[in-house]
């Protein structure tokens, strides 16, 4: 197998993992795709070292997380502006939602609930979403998150608590429609 074919197989294997980490940390698919591309270009430059390494997944996750945090600190103000615009745009029409819920069997209901939770997660403010994602999806400790974000552990706990409260509210709203 040529190097190009090996690298293509490598990207195919890890693209979902890298993109999932990026999109949950950044909240926007376009930014996540940009970051994922940058991550894979870094991997390409060091492909002889990490191509067949058993720690490739860990390396990719670490690089993805670091690039996302850099991206957020660099583009925070701009991100918030566009994020607020998208929040309004992405909200499905109430009538469409009610129609779906009325006709939906359990499977559709679950899919709807999952989608709403994912969307609610992505729409949390950066300072709540990022530590929450690092805790729940990247299995980082409070201490490690505090170090990565350069804030106190108390702030991390407080932000995660607030984020979870917002998500719980989303869950109860979803229940209200059932």
């Amino acid at each position, binding site marked *: 197998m040529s190097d190009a074919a090996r690298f*293509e197989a490598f990207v195919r294997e890890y693209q979902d993992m890298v993109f999932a980490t990026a999109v949950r940390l950044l909240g926007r698919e376009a930014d996540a795709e940009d970051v*994922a591309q940058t991550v894979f270009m870094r991997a390409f430059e060091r492909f002889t070292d990490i191509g067949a390494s058993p720690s490739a997944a860990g390396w990719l996750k670490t690089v993805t997380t670091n690039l996302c945090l850099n991206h957020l600190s660099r583009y925070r103000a701009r991100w918030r502006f566009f994020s607020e615009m998208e929040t309004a745009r992405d909200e499905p029409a109430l009538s469409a939602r009610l129609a779906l819920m009325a006709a939906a069997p359990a499977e559709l209901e679950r899919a709807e609930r999952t989608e709403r939770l994912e969307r609610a997660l992505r729409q949390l403010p950066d300072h709540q979403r990022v530590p929450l994602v690092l805790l729940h999806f990247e299995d980082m400790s409070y201490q490690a998150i505090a170090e990565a974000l350069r804030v106190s552990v108390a702030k991390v706990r407080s932000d995660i608590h607030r984020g979870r409260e917002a998500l719980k509210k989303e869950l109860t709203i979803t229940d209200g429609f059932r």
Partner: protein
Amino acid sequence: MDSGDLDERLDGELRRLPRPRAPRSLLPRVLAATVDHELAASATGWFTWPLRWRITSLTALMAVAAAAWMFLTAPPQGVANAVQNAGEIATVVRAFWEVMLQPVVTYLFVLGISLTLACALAWAALDVALGGASQQ
């Protein structure tokens, strides 16, 4: 539902969230970027050289230019003598060519061709006369 139940449920829902899938455009984007990267890496223009190599090459070029300038403006005595001798030899050779060889070179050429043809004909006649015995 109390707060503890809701916490538990949220944890469960978050655990069950499916992993977002990468868009189809990601793989082609990455592969195209690697091609661009390799093209850029294989570029051999002077400006793409590492800084250390550029400084070294520039210094070497300046040294060669300085040496050439010094050589042209004040050549060493030995070199000057050699150049003068080479010029004298060239003059003698040119005179010999113009006086001795050039007037007869055309005739010598025609004579050479004629002798070659005569030899070939004589060889062929001998071959016929002897019935091909010369090739056995």
